């Protein structure tokens, strides 16, 4: 929890690089965050990582705020500020510039090819997140049933996901999982 300069610099670099690789959004880099935070650097254990992901899904606001939780866990308030800025800053600058020029290339063949090539990768990355998170969160049959049920209801209905999260939390609280 102590925030020395080295750890803050590491956080800043790691998360800035990760944000630029996050094709398809924050969920695309969950496995990389897991690899860095749990496997390589030992900032937290598997359970803490899954907890933080669950909190980031349940709390209001965009999913990317998972990085705020990780930053706080690693280096307190300063860590939270650093990871949030590193994850949300550089690509916002990129978006500002591309937002002005991208329209001009609307019909260029290379733009169409880039877009067609990147979209399946970004979906594959979110697929990898699903694999990593399911592996980390599902340790018994009850948890597996919750995962499958939530996925099915979220896929086939238009329920607000928060209801599903709330019900799963109740199931957990009542000792079912």
């Amino acid at each position, binding site marked *: 929890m102590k925030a020395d300069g080295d750890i803050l610099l590491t956080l800043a670099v790691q998360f800035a690089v990760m944000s630029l690789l996050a094709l398809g959004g924050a969920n695309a880099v969950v496995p990389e965050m897991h690899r860095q935070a749990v496997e390589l650097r030992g900032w937290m254990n598997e359970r803490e990582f899954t907890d933080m992901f669950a909190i980031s899904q349940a709390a209001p606001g965009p999913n990317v705020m998972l990085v705020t939780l990780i930053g706080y866990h690693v280096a307190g308030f300063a860590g*939270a500020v650093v990871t949030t800025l590193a994850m949300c800053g550089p690509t916002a600058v990129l978006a*500002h510039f591309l937002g002005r020029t991208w329209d001009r290339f609307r019909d260029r063949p290379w733009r169409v090819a880039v877009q067609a090539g990147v979209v399946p990768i970004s979906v594959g990355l979110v697929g990898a997140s699903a694999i990593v998170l399911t592996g980390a969160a599902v340790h018994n049959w009850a948890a597996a049933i919750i995962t499958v049920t939530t*996925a099915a209801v979220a896929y086939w209905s238009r329920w607000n996901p928060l209801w599903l999260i709330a019900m799963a939390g109740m199931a957990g609280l009542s000792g079912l999982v």
Partner: protein
Amino acid sequence: MSKPSTLPPPASAIPTHAELFLAFFKITLSGFGGTLPWTRRMFVEENRWMTAQEFNDIYALCQFLPGPNIVNLTSVFGSRMRGPTGAAAAWSGFLIVPFCVMLAAAMLYERYGNVEAVRHVLSGVAPAAAGLIIATVVKMAKPMFRSFGPAPFVLLGTAVAIGLMRWPLLLVLIVMAPLSIGIAWWMRSKETA
């Protein structure tokens, strides 16, 4: 470059910096269960700061750009309206509330994360959160499996490399991105030839 926009908004006046900040600030307050519908409502329907077509174009761009989509969206919107400083206003208006919420959540978690009741709740919520991601992936992947092409293979290859093999993201992207874009380019030139 400092001119506000190449595509001026259709109906009402261009929002000021304060309006941009407040617009996104308000969106995050009402943004339980996704901020996108609220963003659309505020920009297209209520204030007519842009047309539905413009909104869709910007959304498509932000889905494709690296980084958190919705955060990038604030930057592109702000930038279209008021240049770089507009982007900064929209961006900070959007991040301030979620950041404070998450900070509070982080403090609570560090303090009470090991309390038994909290552990029970989280052990139920974590598999549900994984289920939500699965549903999102299936929804996004479905259109790609409808027609024959390289997309399903790229998708599965990426998911296996990262999700099962746990290979580093950078390495996988250095191989997959040129490969996938190259195939898309080749398929396209074959079609048009």
